[in-house]
């Protein structure tokens, strides 16, 4: 980033905070509706110093990790089968497209009934939110594999499981990465949504506590935390992975 651009950005963010603080001081809106940046900062500091914030982040990330892993493993399996077995595609495939259009929070009531207010319930919602994105992208990826790759591998003796793990999955990887990226976004939405509705630990719970205590500074503080985690995971993990795979596969 050029120094001038950086300066502009810093000035902008400082400006936002100042205007925010000024708006607050001018008492345009009451504090309980529109807290000052100071109060939000205090909320964060308080959560950090007594550990609840980190415990919440840890819980949410842990659920995200488990849910996303299950979604990726399941989505790849389902996607590969859909792409390779026409009957599976014609039958299960049409359901997958439908399930994909159900918002992940809409799974929460079912998750609560089936799993109770447990981690399993939150993880179920996360998986339900993410798995179909991974499935559809894997399917598209496998369908778009250069058929010569498959022929070459078969010619060199690959079949069955080896063909899947050594050729189909890596060949479809660039598409699958998009699936992972989309899946992660939906998984993160699923975790937060489920935690809000289950009101059972995690960042979504802390958000809900803020809401129930009418503590807007806590609500905004938690939203900031959720946003920053989103940016970091997206930028550090998925963006990088995507860039690397795209250039390695010669697609960029």
């Amino acid at each position, binding site marked *: 980033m050029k120094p001038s651009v950086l300066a502009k950005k810093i000035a902008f963010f400082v400006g936002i905070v100042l205007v925010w603080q000024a708006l607050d001081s001018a008492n345009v809106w009451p504090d309980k509706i529109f807290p000052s940046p100071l109060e939000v900062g205090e909320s964060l500091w308080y959560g950090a110093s007594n550990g609840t914030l980190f415990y919440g982040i840890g819980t949410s990330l842990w659920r995200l990790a488990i849910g996303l892993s299950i979604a990726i493993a399941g989505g790849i399996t389902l996607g590969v089968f859909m792409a390779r077995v026409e009957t599976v595609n014609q039958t299960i495939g049409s359901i997958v497209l439908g399930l994909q259009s159900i918002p992940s929070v809409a799974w929460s009531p079912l998750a609560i009934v*089936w799993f*109770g207010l447990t981690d*399993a319930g939150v993880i179920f919602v996360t998986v339900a939110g993410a798995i179909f994105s991974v499935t559809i992208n894997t399917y598209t990826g496998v369908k778009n594999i250069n058929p010569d790759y498959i022929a070459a591998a078969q010619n060199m003796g690959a079949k069955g499981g080896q063909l899947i793990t050594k050729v189909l999955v890596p060949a479809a990887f660039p598409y699958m990465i998009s699936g992972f990226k989309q899946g992660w976004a939906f998984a993160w939405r699923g975790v937060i949504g489920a935690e809000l509705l289950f009101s059972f630990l995690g960042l979504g719970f802390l958000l809900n506590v803020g809401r*129930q205590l009418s503590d807007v500074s806590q609500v905004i503080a938690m939203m900031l935390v959720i946003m920053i985690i989103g940016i970091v995971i997206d930028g550090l993990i998925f963006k990088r992975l995507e860039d690397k795979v795209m250039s390695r596969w010669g697609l960029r």
Partner: protein
Amino acid sequence: LSSGQPESDKNQVRVVFFANVNHAVPIVGLENGEFAKELGSTAIKTRVVDSGPEVIEALFTKSADLGYLGPAPFVIGYVKSKTDDIKILSGAASGGASFVIQKDSTISTAADLDGKKIAAPFVGNTQDVSLRHYLAEHNLKPRESGGTVTVYNIANPEIYTIFAKGDIDAAWVPEPTATMLVEQLGGKRLFQEEDTWPDGKFSSVLLVGRTEFLEKHPDVVAKWVAANTNTVNWIKENPDKTESIFIDFYKKYTGKKLDENIIHDAFSHIQITSEPIQNSISIFAERAYGLGYLGHSGYNLDHIYYDVNNGTVGGTSWQN
């Protein structure tokens, strides 16, 4: 489905209840050690929830063994389970809900509720059933059924918030929320719920258990019910201590300090009793059925009681 939770083993009992004044029995009994004393080596695990449906969910998914909740959600859960999965062990409170309107409100009769916004906690909750039945009795319909009254089903703390903002015209709420609306926000108590009941009495909190647990651990259950009764008596004898225990508990749970006067006032609107007031349960069931909460093909409440003395399940009436 619903796997992953450890079955409760012999040495523990898992109990859920709310942080409401109506739930004074479990709160006080747990805080003053009555339950622990009676149960001896059996460990007690507790969880505080916000609504009856959550108690039912906890019992259905086997993540709780006993629970305190209102008669309406109990009846709904019982009918939904189809196989007598839950039973009433005892009562815990009667009364303790009021219809509160805004301080400058002109509402005086049911007809005035036309076009108004009214809050009650959670669909299928005891106050919700009462409110919707009340509306139906007076030929009013909620908006989701094409009517004119907006019913908000939200948690008590949020009812307090939006009542304060003036977003709603009235609320049908349990204690201490009702008293808080009156004392802190200047609301008017239009009527107490018991005024609408025959004999001025209705059950508001029941102690219920998961049938499977009751069959497996009748000894633990008997001890819990005994402690429940002891606590009811203790509360009747120690109203002041009860109030301070409740205030301490609430502070511990939510971090908020409640006003002593409000709690005192709230308790004055409640009867703590171990009697489940059986006819009110039947009436709740009728009302819930009328609202479509129990399905549309009839219902059967023949086996809702558990007989603690014999340790048998399936009684048609409560005997203790």
